[in-house]
C-alpha cells in the first residue's frame, strides 16, 4: 500500500515537476545570495555549516508547503479516505516522498555549495552523508505533520515555515554542529575525522521521538 502511494507521489512529481526543481534552484540562488551578503568567496567551519543548513532548511520549507496542496485542492484526501486502507500509510508515503525530495535537493545543493562557496569537502563526505540522512528523516517526519496541519488553514504558506522552524531547531543544532568540523580545512579539531557521535545521537533521538509522535497524531488530521 505504501509502495503504491509512494509511486503515485513520485509519478505526480515527475510529471508536474512542482517541488524538487524549485527547491534545488532556490538552494543554488541562496548560495549566490549568501556569497554577496557575507562578502566571502569561500567558507569553512561553523560559517559553512550554518549557510549550508539554513539554505537546506529553507529549501525544505518550499517542499513542505507544497506537500499536501494537490491533495487538498484536487480531492486527493477524499479519494484516500474512501479507500479502505490504514491512514498511517499516507503518513509514511508522504514522509518518504519528502525525504526523497530532500535527497535529490541535497545531491544538487551540496556539490553546488562546494563549488560556489569553496567549502572543503572530501575527507568528511561520508560523515556529512550520515548527518544529511539523519537530518532528512527528522525534517521529513516533522515536515509531513506540519504540512498536513497547515494545509487546511487560510494562510497555509505562512504556517508551514512558522510552525516548522521552531520545531526543527534541534535538527539545526545537531546537524550544523555535526557538519561544522567536516567542513573545515584542518579537519576535526579534536583529532579523528568524522562527526561527533553526540550530535548524531541527538539527531537520531529527534527522528525517533517525532516519528512516533507523527505516527500517533496523524490519524486525527485526516478524519472528515
Amino acid at each position, binding site marked *: 500500500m505504501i509502495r503504491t502511494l509512494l509511486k503515485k507521489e513520485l509519478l505526480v512529481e515527475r510529471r508536474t515537476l512542482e517541488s524538487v526543481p524549485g527547491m534545488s534552484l532556490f538552494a543554488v540562488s541562496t548560495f549566490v545570495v549568501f556569497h554577496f551578503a557575507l562578502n566571502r568567496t569561500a567558507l569553512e567551519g561553523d560559517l559553512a555549516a550554518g549557510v549550508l543548513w539554513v539554505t537546506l532548511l529553507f529549501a525544505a520549507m518550499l517542499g513542505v508547503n507544497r506537500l499536501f496542496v494537490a491533495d487538498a485542492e484536487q480531492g486527493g484526501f477524499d479519494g484516500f479516505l474512501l479507500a479502505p486502507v490504514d491512514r498511517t500509510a499516507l503518513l509514511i508515503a508522504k514522509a518518504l516522498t519528502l525525504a526523497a525530495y530532500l535527497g535529490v535537493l541535497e545531491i544538487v545543493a551540496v556539490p553546488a555549495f562546494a563549488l560556489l562557496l569553496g567549502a572543503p569537502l572530501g575527507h568528511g563526505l561520508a560523515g556529512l552523508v550520515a548527518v544529511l540522512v539523519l537530518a532528512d528523516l527528522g525534517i521529513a517526519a516533522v515536515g509531513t505533520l506540519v504540512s498536513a496541519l497547515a494545509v487546511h*488553514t487560510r494562510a497555509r504558506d505562512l*504556517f508551514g515555515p512558522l*510552525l516548522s522552524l521552531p520545531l526543527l*531547531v534541534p535538527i539545526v543544532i545537531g546537524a550544523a554542529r555535526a557538519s561544522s568540523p567536516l567542513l573545515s580545512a584542518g579537519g576535526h579539531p579534536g583529532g579523528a575525522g568524522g562527526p561527533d557521535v553526540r550530535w548524531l545521537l541527538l539527531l537520531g533521538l529527534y527522528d525517533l521521538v517525532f516519528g512516533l509522535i507523527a505516527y500517533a497524531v496523524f490519524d486525527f488530521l485526516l*478524519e472528515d
Partner: protein
Amino acid sequence: MQRALSLRFLSVVTVLAFCVSLSLVFFYAPIEAEEGFVQKIFYLHVPLAIVSLCGFVLGGIFAIAHLRTRESKWDLRSYVAIHMSLIFGVVTLVTGSIWAHASWGHWWVWSEPTLVSFLIVMLLYATYQPMRFAIEDPERQARYASVFAVVAGASVPMNFLAVRLSTSYLHPRVLGSSSNLPPSMRFTFLVSLISMALLFATLSLYELAAKRARISLKAKSRILGYR
C-alpha cells in the same frame, strides 16, 4: 453558583498567597552576596517560567484528552492553559532579560541555555492562536489545535535537551538551579512558586468561566434568532 463561590474563594487565597510570598521576598529572604537586590527577581522569574512550562505541558495533556474523548470542554481547557502560559511566558522572557542585564550587563545572553530554549518554545507556541483561528470549521479547529498542542508539548523537552547540549561544553551553569540554595531562600522560592501556580489556576478558571459564558450566550442568542 457553586463554581462562582469556589472561584471567589480561590481568588482570595491567591491574593493572600501573594501577600505572604512578596513579604517573604522583600523582608525575609537574604540579599544575595554577589548580585545584591536585583537577585530578588529570581523569585518572580523562575516560578513564572516553571508555571508557564507546566501550563504548556498541561495544555498538551488536555489536548490528548480532547483527541481521545472528542469532548469540546477538553479543547477549551487546552486552549486556556496554552493562552495563559503564553502570557506568563512573555513575562518570563521580560523578567529574564532584566535579570540578565543586571547580572551580566546584556539584555540577551546566548550562553544561558534555559533562556534560549524558552525563547524557542515561545516562538513555537506563538503560532498556536494564529493557526487555530486560520481554520474555519470549528470542529476541525479544535482537532488541529489539539494535534498542535500535543506535538508542541513533546518538542519542549527536545528543545531543552538540544540547546543544553549545544552550550554545556563552554559554560558551566551558574544560576537557576535551586538545589544549592540556602534554606531561607529555598523556602521563599517555594512559597513564590506555590503562589504563582495559584495565580495561574485562578486566571485560567476566570478565563474558562468567561469562555463558557460567551458560548452559552451565543447559543441562547441563536435560539432567540439574533445574529
